[in-house]
């Protein structure tokens, strides 16, 4: 890592009084490949932070570490000041109930109709009655612009944009305190991408939730973020308000946001 990259990192991660999510020194490797190398990140209460970075830089790994789907080798992840790393069983479930997650490909359960997908966290996590959960599920589907007829369909019958909306409805159904968005606009046309961005802003604002998104779609990042952080080489090399990203002073950020092949970021290409 260059000096310039390290200096921007220090300036870019402001000390927040009581961060909702506080990550310090996070390390995660797969065999010899180091993916996260001492990553630090704070996300404030009610803030919407978008982590940008190229493919394979560890954005999804970061989210999976926070959710406890992957176990980091070292470092700390605190939610409301409570350490997440090493939590198991009911303690972990209790913290997970604060979270909602929109997966990249929505990850809807094929075996359940759409409304049961949306109501899943209410029925299984919060132990609500099926009838009550069904009413809430149809309300959430309406909130993301889907009619009640969609609720009775199978996920296999939905288009990509509809699947994302259902995934979003499922993510907000339990009214979580923190919502994670994994590449929310990937695979969608620009118009549908913008519809999803608008829905994310609306839902997060209405719930008053904290949002952490990962994407490499700069249009989406600029729209949904209060603050953007750039992940490169296993670390956050720059973080700051959206308005400041065009004047970041970081060659890495400049190259990424303008999508240039030339610059300090070298893509790992294999000769054919």
């Amino acid at each position, binding site marked *: 890592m260059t000096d310039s990259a390290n200096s921007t990192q220090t300036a870019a991660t402001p000390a927040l009084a009581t961060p909702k999510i506080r990550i310090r020194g996070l390390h995660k490797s797969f065999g010899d490949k180091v993916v996260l190398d001492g990553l630090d990140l704070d996300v404030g209460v009610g803030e919407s932070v978008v982590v940008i970075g190229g493919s394979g830089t560890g954005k999804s790994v970061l989210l*999976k570490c926070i*959710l*406890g*789907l992957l176990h980091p080798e070292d470092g700390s992840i605190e939610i409301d000041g409570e350490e997440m790393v090493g939590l198991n069983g009911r303690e972990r*479930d209790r913290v*997970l*109930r604060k*979270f*909602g*997650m929109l*997966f*990249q*490909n929505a*990850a*809807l*359960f*094929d*075996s359940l109709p759409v409304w049961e997908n949306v109501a*899943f*966290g209410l029925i*299984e*996590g919060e132990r609500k009655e099926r009838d009550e959960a069904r009413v809430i599920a149809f309300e959430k589907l309406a909130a993301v612009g889907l009619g009640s007829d969609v609720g009775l369909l199978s996920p296999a019958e939905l288009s990509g944009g509809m699947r994302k909306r259902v995934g979003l409805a*499922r993510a907000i159904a339990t009214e979580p305190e923190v919502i994670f968005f994994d590449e929310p606009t990937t695979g969608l046309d620009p118009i549908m991408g913008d519809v999803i961005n608008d829905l994310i802003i609306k839902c997060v604002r209405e719930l008053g939730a904290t949002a952490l998104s990962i994407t490499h779609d700069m249009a989406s990042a600029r729209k949904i973020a209060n603050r953007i952080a750039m992940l490169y080489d296993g670390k956050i090399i720059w973080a700051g308000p959206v308005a400041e990203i065009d004047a970041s002073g970081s060659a890495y950020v400049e190259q990424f946001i303008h999508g240039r092949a030339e610059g300090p970021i070298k893509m790992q290409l294999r000769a054919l």
Partner: protein
Amino acid sequence: MPILQPIGRTVLRFFEATGRLSLFAFTAITHCVRPPFYPRLIGRQMVEIGFYSLPVVGLTAIFTGMVLALQSYTGFARFSAESAVPNVVVVSITRELGPVLAALMVAGRVGAAMAAEIGTMRVTEQIDALDTLATNPFKYLIAPRLIAGSTMMPLLVLIADVIGVFGGYVVSIYKLGFNPHIYLKNTIDFMEFQDVVSGLVKASVFGFLITLMGCYHGYNSRGGAQGVGAATTNAVVSASILILSFNYLITEMFFAR
């Protein structure tokens, strides 16, 4: 020694796989006996494993019983022991062929489907989604299948036993000219309680092994469609091998003097 390295690596890999499988089985069993339980899912799996496997298990049993009667008759005719046909049919079906053939058929039908379904859930992040919705995948996906497999296989085998013996009866009466009353009397007189019980114990163990291998390979599948395909194949092959191995062990337990 270069020749020892691959042998050592293979041995280590075998023990690693055995350890992983044992840990997976132990975790799954603990979730089978701890609440919350999912009766709707257990019921759905019971229908899937028990009811929908009936045609294939029934067909296997009836043809096995018919062939067994025919083969026993032609073989025993060489030393004038044709009257032993009902005894051979009932003992072979209840002790061995009923449970083993039914289990192999169910492994092909149910084990493969489970590995494919859970494997697809793994590669499409549905299992991660379960986890983030504070629902333990072992409790929601694995435990209902293990419970359903272990309880439905004995019922399937009981039906297979009846159909298999009936297949032997049909061939013996209508083709080989046995007296129906004497055939039935010999069948019932010769059959012992232990013959049926040993077959049902085998069936329960086989049901557990089939669902365990389907779930294990599906849960640990990686790498998209190819990974799911490999998981499906591995589930059927490993379940079949375990069925045959445990068949010997249980037979030894019940009948070795």
